[in-house]
């Protein structure tokens, strides 16, 4: 078959235009993929009053037994004294609110430099060590950055509970698998806030998508001085703390 010069050039141009359009379409789709979400939480330590509402709300929402000494989120109390000792306690995770005051009894009031409450939860790490150690692939990170546990797949070996540097995982006494904070995945996917964020009376917890420039947390990360727990582990935790003192571990 002979191809005339005219015909050859025609074919060439059609093919090149087709390739050009295809590359453009690819780019558009690639951009849409890049609009991923990354859910994070910001905790303002200055605002936490230790009322423990978040702890109860979390247990009710996620059906963790109220009496069991396991918590998806909990509140710790820090007391720093003049001789640089740090006292940390968490009476039942703070579920009954903090009432008794150790200051003035075990610790002298004059010795106290500062004292404050720190709410804690799963940090939904960027490089979660719990996911790496799971032998059966029962725990994983979703596309929007939330680390979840597959309750049907988990064999309850407890490696992940050991591996978590924040002690955020526990053995669920009813389901009999490993369990942890899910950022209330069923709520956030329906446009609601996580249970702890909903009930916090002082807005000490703020939840959002850090990839969205219009989101509150995006602005906070941009403007505020924030810190994370144990950055040296390399886990890249995604729960950020405002006003965190170096004593907090």
């Amino acid at each position, binding site marked *: 078959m002979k191809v005339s010069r005219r015909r050859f050039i025609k074919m060439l141009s059609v093919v090149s235009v087709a390739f050009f359009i295809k590359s453009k379409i690819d780019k558009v789709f690639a951009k849409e993929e890049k609009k991923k979400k990354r859910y994070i939480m910001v905790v303002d330590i200055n605002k936490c009053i230790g009322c423990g509402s978040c702890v109860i709300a979390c247990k009710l929402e996620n059906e963790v037994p109220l009496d069991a000494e396991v918590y998806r989120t909990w509140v710790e109390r820090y007391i720093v004294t003049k001789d640089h000792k740090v006292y940390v306690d968490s009476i039942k995770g703070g579920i009954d609110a903090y009432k008794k005051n150790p200051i003035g009894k075990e610790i002298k009031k004059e010795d106290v430099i500062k004292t404050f409450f720190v709410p804690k939860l799963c940090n939904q790490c960027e490089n979660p060590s719990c996911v790496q150690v799971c032998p059966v692939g029962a725990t994983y990170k979703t596309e929007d950055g939330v680390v979840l546990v597959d309750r049907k797949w988990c064999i309850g070996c407890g490696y992940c509970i050991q591996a978590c540097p924040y002690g955020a995982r526990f053995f669920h006494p009813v389901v009999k698998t490993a369990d942890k904070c899910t950022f209330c995945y069923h709520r956030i996917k329906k446009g609601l806030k996580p249970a702890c964020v*909903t009930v916090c009376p002082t807005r000490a917890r703020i939840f959002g998508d850090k990839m969205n420039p219009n989101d509150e947390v995006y602005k906070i990360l941009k403007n505020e001085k924030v810190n994370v727990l144990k950055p040296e582990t390399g886990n890249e935790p995604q729960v950020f703390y405002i006003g965190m003192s170096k004593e907090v571990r």
Partner: protein
Amino acid sequence: MLNQVHRVILVIIVLFIFVSIIREIVVPEDFGVAGHFRYSNIKEWEQLEPKLVGEYKETCATCHTKQFKEWNEGIHAGISCETCHALVGNVERYPGRLHLSNPSKYKMSKDSRELCLRCHEKLESRPKFIKQVISEQHAPKGKCTTCHNPHNPIKPLLINKYKTNISLITNKCNPCHVGTIYRLQALAKEKDSESILDFLYSVRHPGYSVVSTIEKEEMKKIIEELSERKVEEKRIEKKTGTTKIIENRCNVCHSDTISKLRNSLKIRGFDGTLDFILSDKHPGSFMIKDISRETLKDILNEVK
């Protein structure tokens, strides 16, 4: 020899087929679609039903209109309904969605001293921006709701006892003064209502601009009613002139005036302090301009 090699290869092939068949049966189809996990588990988590409501304007406010309005105007606005009504209290704990489905069966909890004290008990670790009471001293056997309206706590419920519109005072004066009613009452015992009014509506009263939004006639009625009432003795503490001036003027801006003055006395000395508080460098100097230098000296001596 060839036979042996063939046999080993055969065993390996059979083993391989056997293992891959078992793997095909045991491992779910969606395992490994987006990573080393079962992809459908994400959907399983997503499909759980939320229990706390979280949005109140569309749900709670449709029935509890009055409470919603009060709450929306008060200082507790923004605290979710469920923080108080779903988590603790004298009724079994029900997350909001159950109550929405069957309001008469699933009653939300309310009115509990334990509940208020979760946030308002005095604690060293608790940030100072929140009002705190020592529960053992603050009406130990009383119910919080006898005196306070939890939906709008700035408005005390006791105001119903008064004939005049006393909420004007509590709403407008309490931001600066502590226990406004009792202070006015004590003042009304000593001075006649005209001179109190003169002071309140003069520039000497730092809250002049706030008071001037209240009608003078109304104010007069309030003060007259207060002077007729029995004074609660324990509320009036005997105070020297010094503490009165400091409390009324300096405390408007400073939280711990006396210790601040003592610090200043140490650093600047007696005359230095006096000069400073009267100079333009002190933003509040206009508030003490009507007090003579001699009186200020007395005050500083007493503080010292």
